[in-house]
């Protein structure tokens, strides 16, 4: 049958700038481990890598189900890779159903190569055989190059339970196809199964080599994605791990949390390292308690962190307001997921910006930052802790489901003692000093910590005077709101303008924040290469906003934000400028700079693709070019 390729041939080694691989299986079959290992090996060879988890909706979805695909997308390149890219160039599937899920979602490039487990064709259950052949033939019909691979059959020769071994066999195939260093592959296996006994390692290495050999014999293609081995040590971790390491590096040693997808894994990692490094993760009874617990710990002299996602953040709104009012330093991480309400727990969205800025009742000014890369997730925590402590303020760091599970290599941070929190001050408070000696210009005041002689006072969430006495005087209330708001201006003066990618002037400026950075910049660079006058800038601080933004906006005919949250579409019959609901950042920019900032957004629960952004920008450019033609 013509889908199977002839057995003998000569291979041409094809050199590629980049390639996107997808590996999918039923959950529990280890496609994820395979994908991550593949990514790590490539990274260690010096390739740019970005891996995206393919997560099934259920904990244990039924076998061979379209919605049950579990695995990884790995994008490797010769250069740094900043996002998951567009459609996949090659797919490896452990059964045809999980494959279908990805095909239907439009995740595979038309006509791409598909390596498909062939065992289902000989399954005793005729229904399964029918499903298999039907799907295979449909894909062939649609022009995909389906190559059937007897994975299980090949593995059975080496291990009792081939279902468990397949993934390393596939890893071997990939090493062959992408000409990866087999020694690194063997090290990787040793690393993964290191804890288990040598036998396990050996048999997995055997599977690896079997996969390599099978590919060498049966596949008529072989690629090389040139890599420049970086001279500095690299780490390959996901965004939640980066957050956890950042917490550690920042000197914060108390994390209060309540489990919630997709934020929890950060706390999992912390629970692990804290047990060695000292520090504690407190799993509270709910998010309200987690927030209050962190506030208590911060008040007592530390800076504590609480990590959550949308629904948990909504519950923390009141507690966060207390921290703002009492000027208790606090770091809050919101790993955004699809909303509103329970929404899409495992999917990415950028829907919480405004609720973070405005959600607590009354005027509750706080610092809001957004991490835009995995490396950023790490460094944001260090900045956040310092700002919280310097300003006696709440600092919220926004991450999201894409960053939390995405993996990317970056230069291993070299620890800097300055990152750490200063020791808790227990010296007597100077006579006459007050807990809220608000500086008239900056709103700043010194921090009082329990244990300091001469500093006794009662902190309160009620309106209070400089001595922290409950106050009913109209002027004092005005003064308190004034001081707390001034601190944001004081910080803003210390910030630098956001960098611009591309020329400082042109037809169109794209503005973004958070995890969309990689996709936006890739699209912009592509369009610039095509000669379009488009540039982009990405905001690290959403509140306060960095200086110099107005000047940047003024350099362009049109400004467009690209965001992963909701915005009404002006092409809808009922939507016009008098009722259009703008995306979060677009609204903030319009309000502050009175520039007619437009927005393009998507809430499809998946990372926004560079190609999608590319097309969206193209459309806008066309409009501009014709209006200005």
């Amino acid at each position, binding site marked *: 049958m013509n889908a199977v390729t002839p057995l003998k041939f000569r291979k041409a080694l094809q050199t590629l700038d980049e390639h996107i691989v997808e590996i999918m299986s039923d959950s529990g079959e280890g496609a994820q481990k395979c994908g991550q290992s593949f990514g790590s090996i490539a990274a260690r060879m010096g390739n740019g890598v970005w891996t995206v988890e393919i997560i099934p909706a259920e904990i244990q979805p039924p076998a061979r189900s379209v919605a049950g695909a579990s695995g990884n997308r790995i994008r490797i390149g010769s250069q740094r890779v900043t996002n998951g890219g567009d459609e996949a160039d090659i797919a490896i599937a452990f059964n045809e159903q999980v494959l279908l899920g990805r095909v239907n979602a439009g995740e595979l490039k038309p006509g791409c190569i598909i390596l498909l487990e062939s065992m289902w064709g000989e399954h005793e259950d005729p229904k399964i055989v029918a499903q298999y052949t039907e799907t295979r033939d449909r894909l062939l019909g649609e022009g995909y190059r389906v190559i059937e691979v007897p994975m299980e059959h090949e593995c059975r020769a080496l291990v009792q339970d081939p279902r468990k071994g397949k993934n390393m066999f596939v890893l071997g195939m990939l090493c062959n196809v992408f000409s990866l260093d087999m020694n690194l592959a063997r090290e990787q296996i040793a690393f993964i199964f290191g804890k288990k006994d040598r036998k396990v390692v050996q048999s997995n290495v055997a599977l690896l080599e079997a996969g390599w050999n099978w590919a060498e014999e049966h596949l008529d293609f072989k690629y090389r994605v040139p890599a420049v081995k970086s001279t500095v040590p690299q780490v390959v971790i996901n965004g939640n791990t980066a957050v956890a390491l950042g917490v550690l590096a920042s000197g914060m040693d108390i994390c209060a949390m309540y489990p919630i997808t997709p934020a929890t894994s950060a706390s999992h990692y912390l629970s692990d390292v804290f047990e060695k490094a000292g520090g*504690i993760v407190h799993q509270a009874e709910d998010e309200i308690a987690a927030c209050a*617990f962190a*506030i208590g710990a911060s008040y*007592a002299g530390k800076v504590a962190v609480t990590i959550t996602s949308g629904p948990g953040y909504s519950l923390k709104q009141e507690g966060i307001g207390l921290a703002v009012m009492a000027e208790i330093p606090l770091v809050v991480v919101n790993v955004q997921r699809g909303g509103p309400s329970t929404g899409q727990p495992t999917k990415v969205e950028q829907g919480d910006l405004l609720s973070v800025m405005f959600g607590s009742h009354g005027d509750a000014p706080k610092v809001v930052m957004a991490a835009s890369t995995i490396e950023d997730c790490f460094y944001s925590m260090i900045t956040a802790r310092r700002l919280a402590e310097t300003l006696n303020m709440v600092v919220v760091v926004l991450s999201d489901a894409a960053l939390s599970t995405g993996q990317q290599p970056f230069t291993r941070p070299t620890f800097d003692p300055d990152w750490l929190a200063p020791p808790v001050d227990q010296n007597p*408070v100077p006579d006459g000093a007050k807990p809220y000696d608000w500086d008239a210009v900056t709103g700043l005041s010194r921090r009082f910590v*329990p244990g300091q002689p001469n500093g006794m006072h009662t902190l309160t969430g009620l309106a209070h005077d400089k001595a922290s006495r409950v106050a009913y005087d109209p002027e004092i209330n005005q003064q308190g709101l004034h001081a707390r708001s001034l601190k944001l201006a004081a910080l803003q003066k210390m910030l630098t303008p956001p960098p611009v990618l591309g020329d400082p002037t042109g037809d169109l400026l794209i503005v973004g924040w958070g995890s969309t950075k990689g996709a936006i910049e890739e699209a912009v660079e592509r369009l610039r290469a095509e000669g379009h006058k488009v540039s982009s800038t990405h905001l690290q601080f959403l509140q306060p906003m960095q200086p110099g933004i107005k000047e940047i906006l003024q350099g362009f005919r049109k400004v467009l934000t690209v965001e992963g949250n909701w915005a009404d579409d002006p092409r809808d019959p009922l939507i016009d400028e008098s009722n259009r609901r703008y995306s979060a950042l677009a609204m903030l920019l319009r309000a502050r700079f009175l520039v007619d900032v437009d927005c393009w957004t998507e809430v499809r629960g998946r990372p926004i693709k560079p190609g999608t952004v590319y097309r969206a920008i193209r459309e806008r450019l066309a409009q501009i070019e014709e209006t200005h033609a």
Partner: protein
Amino acid sequence: MSTATLCLQHLAEDRHALEDYQGGVPRWCKGCGDNAILTAMQRLCRDEGLRPEKTVFVSGIGCSSRLPHYMRTYGFHGIHGRAFPIAEGIKLARPDLHVFVNTGDGDCCSIGAAHWIHAIRYNMNITVLLHDNHIYGLTKKQASPTSPLGTRSNTTPRGSYLEAMSPLTVTLGVQNVSFVAQAVDWIPESLFQVITAAYRHKGFSFVRVLQRCPEFVGNMYEPWVHDPQRMLMLTHEHGLRVSPALSKIYRNQQEHDPSDIHRAREVASSEDPIPVGILYRNPEVPCYED
């Protein structure tokens, strides 16, 4: 007090006078039971020699929750219902601090109920005073979970339709409970004794104080105040010891072994006579922060 004197002072193991613990002028109604609790607290700090700067009073929101403002120690007047998690965070970060929680029946048993249940589980070394006046005081008279059946309030104009919840039986139903006691604001001596025992117990010590709110529940406790025989003093060598003087008035006494949880649960259910003393104590329960 100048910094210099302070430092000197700390070279010696310092003792403090009552005034050293007295903060702003209390703003409670005349005859409010909170005053008695405040006095007991200040006396405790003095007699146990707690350094003001090493002591933190945490509260939620309510009349009772204003207590920290009247102590000259550190205080954290938090938000409604959240005194427990705030106190836990403080204690976990700073085991060297003496942490007290003052909470009301609405603050603790209604909006704070989940935190209360779990605070018992965590069993951190914190001393808790539940100012139970059976009503929402600060918000001007709404029924609380501990309001007796039929209580007329602004939200229950025809009288409340639920039996009062007993904070004691609830607390005794939670795994890891390590100290439960009851006192009343009108018997200062035993109030003070109970609080002292609570403070000295290593773990989460829960003291329910029946507190009079003349403003909104009027003379609810007058029958008990005027008839000492309707008070049941739980005496034990490891529990309350009633002074001879007091014994003359409160003759209704009963030996109660604080180590027996089943008995404790039964005694806890009694509303008349009102039991006063230590219902349960188990020093063996490990503390979360250890």
